[in-house]
């Protein structure tokens, strides 16, 4: 084999180290018992125990989960409706691009756009505005995923249902939605993860009394390196990893149905 392959092997290994070293460092340090997270004192779960008594972290975590759940529900509902509608209307490129735009627009631009909208209609900033904003953002991803799946669907299958005497509701719930299931699951997992990890939009559209977890982490990081972040980072990492693996498993199972 030519020499170049060896060079790309080395670069690939460097890339993998580059991608995992920082994460692993955080994970490793989370088991440090020292109160200065940069000085290694000993292995232990001290900070894992401490974090459960840290009221701001726990309540912001609850808020984040709440926002992510409500966002997932509405994104899925609105996104699926829009997708099915767009498909029925045989809508062209413009409407499709328009409904997926929030996924492409930089989050900062979307965030200030939403902020100015809320202030124009005098909506006070709190978790409600975060949920609205995250729904706008996540719906775009749901539409992108569901539309792609609808595109793969044989249009005769819905016709077959009508031909065999089913009404529009039965066709929707017994034929269309079951076929979209893999996309709906993927959309739900994606919405939940995106909303849970989302910082920029929440930062602009949330009020000061109800920070979400990423906002709390942000303000903690601004004060420097602290042991709590190592632990939180490791926990979030674990949640994301489990989420991704779960999504793939469910995706595979759903696809085989």
């Amino acid at each position, binding site marked *: 084999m030519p020499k170049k392959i060896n060079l790309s092997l080395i670069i690939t290994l460097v890339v993998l180290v580059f991608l995992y070293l920082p994460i692993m460092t955080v994970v490793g340090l989370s088991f440090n018992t020292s109160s200065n997270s940069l000085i290694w004192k000993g292995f232990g779960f001290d900070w894992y125990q401490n974090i459960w008594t840290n009221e701001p972290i726990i309540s912001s975590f609850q808020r984040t989960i709440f926002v992510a759940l409500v966002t997932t529900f509405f994104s899925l509902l609105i996104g699926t409706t829009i997708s099915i509608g767009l498909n029925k209307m045989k809508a062209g490129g413009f409407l499709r691009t328009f409904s997926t735009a929030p996924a492409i627009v930089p989050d900062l631009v979307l965030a200030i756009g939403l902020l100015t909208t809320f202030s124009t209609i005098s909506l006070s900033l709190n978790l409600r505005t975060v949920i609205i904003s995250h729904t706008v953002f996540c719906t775009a991803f749901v539409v992108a995923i569901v539309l792609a799946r609808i595109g793969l669907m*044989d249009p*005769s*299958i819905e*016709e*077959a*249902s*009508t*031909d*065999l*005497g*089913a*009404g529009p509701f*039965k066709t929707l719930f017994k*034929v269309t939605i*079951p*076929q979209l*299931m893999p996309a709906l699951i993927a959309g739900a997992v994606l919405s939940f993860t995106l909303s849970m990890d989302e910082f920029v939009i929440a930062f602009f559209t949330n009020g000061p009394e109800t920070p979400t977890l990423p906002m709390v982490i942000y303000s903690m990081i601004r004060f420097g390196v602290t042991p709590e972040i190592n632990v939180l980072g490791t926990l979030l990492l674990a949640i994301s990893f489990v989420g991704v693996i779960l999504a793939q498993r469910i995706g595979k199972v759903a696809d085989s*149905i």
Partner: protein
Amino acid sequence: MSEDLLKVRNLTKKFGTITALNNVSLEIKNNEMFALLGPSGCGKTTLLRIIAGFEYPDSGQVLINDSDLLSIPTRTRPVNLMFQSYALFPHMDIFSNISYGLTNTSFTKEEINNQTNEIIEKIGLGEHVKKKPNQLSGGQQQRVALARAIARKPKILLLDEPLSALDKKIRQEMQVELKRIQHEFGITFIIVTHDQDEAISLANRIAVFDKGEIKQISTPQELYENPTNEFVANFIGEGNILKATSTNFGFEHPCLGKVNISHSMGAGKSVTILIRPESIILSPATTGAGQITDAVFAGAKKNITIKLTTNEIVRVYADKSANLEVGSHVNLSFNPQDVRVF
């Protein structure tokens, strides 16, 4: 006339500037195997979709047992469709696929189960009831599609290109099977196809479509032997189409000479004639009407290709023992009764 189950009257349907159906009329009898045959884009699928209820015509009528079919909603029409792609529900097992149509009726659960099992039995799908469609072969999937479509005991079953997705061997098997099932269930079949072999082997009668119009409706044999126009002559079976000039008693062709036939179209007009390959007899000649350019052995016969002095190409089925070599000159003769003039 009461034996006509379905009457289509002056049906016209346009998609934008394209006319899919232009003033189409036809009658289909009870228990008939009727084929709508034509090249793709000829309007046959549009007619099928109008009967099924997925399209609505711009004008015209469709009557079933002399009552209006078009005013019946798609889902309650006594008509079912077997889709070209089969359109089986991929997330349901075979039993649920077949019973789906019955669940949209007022039957009890027990009646649904009994009727579904009866159909599964008759169509020979017993061992597959618990499987998903993607676990079945193409031929088995088609049986499921067929079973699902006849489960509601429709008056008419529409079949969209029923054999096109199958390979040759299963195709022949399914032809026999379709005829058996049609006979057993006593349902009228309307088959849409672009494949003349499929239409000829399955149907009692065929409507030949071209560019949104019906060119001829007849039995397969009639279409082959007595096509009424050039399109049908060309589309059904293999035929030699030649340009000739009409005379008072028939026609005249530079290589075939004057031929007298039973009817005349008046003298001096340019006409088209059709002669089937099996109707021509070849005789060697030193300077004949044409020269053999190709001779291919094909089992019981020889396929001969001849180039006439008019540069027209003629195909002839000759006896396999005939001594006909590429390059030799031949004269052509035939029984004037076997010639069609348009």
